[in-house]
């Protein structure tokens, strides 16, 4: 987007100095250095180590780990539930953001604050809340404990704010006049949504969805209590990693971790591509 906006102005502007000639001033260079170091210590080095550990065992470890039906089932369940939850969030999150931005109602400020609670709540506390509400002693008479539904429910709870918070500011920036212009040109409400509003929101929906999916495949704390971690039923990938580590099999744990990493990366790229397509073809 940015390069589109800035590059082809093509007028008589003087040629900028070549990219390679660094424009870094001393403070900027220090800033960059600190940033890269920080990022390396926190993210790059651990990531590299994990990949290295997994690769250290060669392909054999990967094949063996994935070949383990219990592990394969856990990864499958995790990815499936995370996808499902992300899908629900895309719809519900956009809807909630819309209501929060466009509608005026009593208690709006309160709702605005409550949305963030899944962010603020320690995940294990979220797990406790869910267990008491939807566990064996549910006052609502709904018991999803020890089923795959429990995973779905827990993920829904912790990922709720992502899409809402991503979409909200973009929606606030959207001028109502643009919709009126579309209406006066004859577009129905649905067409205006599909061709004008959705393309403007697509990048933010995608970034919210990416976060929600990433959180979904990595979630641990909020679902361990409710799901019961039953193999082939409600055991997720992060629990599998934990088990491998406990059984002193770090290579297999790393292998699962790398697979999750690859899935997350694939999700980020796919969502990015989709959002660009939607944004382009209004």
């Amino acid at each position, binding site marked *: 987007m940015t390069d589109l*906006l800035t590059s082809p102005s093509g007028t008589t502007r003087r040629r900028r100095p070549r990219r390679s000639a660094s424009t870094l001033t001393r403070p900027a260079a220090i800033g960059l250095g600190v940033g890269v170091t920080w990022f390396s210590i926190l993210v790059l080095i651990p990531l590299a180590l994990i990949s290295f550990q997994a690769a250290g065992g060669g392909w054999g470890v990967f094949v063996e780990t994935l070949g383990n039906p219990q592990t394969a089932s856990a990864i499958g369940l995790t990815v499936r539930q995370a996808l499902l939850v992300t899908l629900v969030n895309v719809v519900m999150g956009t809807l909630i953001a819309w209501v929060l931005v466009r509608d005026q109602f009593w208690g709006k400020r309160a709702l605005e604050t409550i949305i963030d609670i899944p962010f603020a709540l320690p995940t294990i506390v979220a797990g406790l809340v869910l267990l008491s509400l939807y566990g064996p002693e549910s006052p609502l008479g709904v018991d999803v404990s020890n089923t795959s539904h429990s995973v779905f429910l827990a993920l829904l709870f912790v990922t709720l704010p992502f899409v809402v918070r991503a979409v909200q500011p973009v929606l606030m920036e959207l001028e109502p006049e643009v919709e009126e212009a579309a209406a*006066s040109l004859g577009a129905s409400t649905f067409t205006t949504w599909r061709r004008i509003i959705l393309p403007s929101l697509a990048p933010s929906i995608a970034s919210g969805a990416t976060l929600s999916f990433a959180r979904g495949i990595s979630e641990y704390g909020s679902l361990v209590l409710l799901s019961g971690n039953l193999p082939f039923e409600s055991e997720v990938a992060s629990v599998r990693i934990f088990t491998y580590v406990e059984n002193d099999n770090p290579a297999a744990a790393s292998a699962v971790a790398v697979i999750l990493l690859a899935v997350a990366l694939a999700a980020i790229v796919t969502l990015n591509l989709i959002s660009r397509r939607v944004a382009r073809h209004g």
Partner: protein
Amino acid sequence: MGIEIVGVNKSFGDFVALSDIDLSIPSGGLTALLGPSGGGKSTLLRIIAGLETADSGTIEIEGQDTTNVPAQRRNVGFVFQHYAAFKHMSVAKNVAFGLEIRKRPKAEIARRVEELLELVHLEQFAHRLPAQLSGGQRQRMALARALAIEPSVLLLDEPFGALDAKVRKELRDWLRRLHDEVHVTTVFVTHDQEEALEVADTIVVINDGRIEQVGTPDDLYDKPASDFVLSFLGPVTTLGDRLIRPHDIEISRVEQAAVVDGPITRWTRVGFEIRLEVTPTDARYAPVQVSVTRTEAHALGLHPGDHVWLRPAVGAQSVVSA
């Protein structure tokens, strides 16, 4: 024909935006709704477009009652002050939007878009995004987009309000010429009296939710119906007990029959024009603003502090001040 507005009322809560508006706008003309901010002119325009509904009253466009027709089916072209561009679409796509909604054949759309872009002088910008255009270009794109659907009326809400003075003037001339070419019934809202006087065939002065006067620019300027219209259409000053334009005052350094006389107490030169303030010796009267050209001041030998005699020039319009 044209647009017939009968008995339109509109309130927002306690605020009365329009009260009992009756107005008929001629077909094919270029009409300005002129008035101060918050006077109701934009609300009236939005009611004509169907973007706002009147509390009571009827709207007829080209002989068809559209009071209850939604904006989508009124076939009205609307141009907004802040362009309302579809930011993710190219200029050509923006212009094509209305035609695509109407499911016209692709070839026809392409041809029409090309024609329109030529009309608004944006042919070489067809593939740019709105963000890559200047304000004036964006507004021309918005105009082409509105014209694409061959609207029965074209409505512009403060179309040049967001542009700087020079571009505003250019676009104004250009709108006038465009209208002479396209002949679509056009209504535009403005709070700039110069813009209205220069561009419009008919001016409707709206203030406080009411129509003050309807007429040609000459009518309004020469025969203002009220002191509001007089003072809104240009500078005014009080000479004795009447409102008059500062340039309609005859000024003399020699004693003559006059309404007031007194010394020149302020002298401001603005380009070719000199604005004087004369403080009458008769303390009952307020200071009078007089405007003369530099050449006139020279010919009369005026200087700051001179004692002068003032009276209305022959044929000057004036209104008893309220």
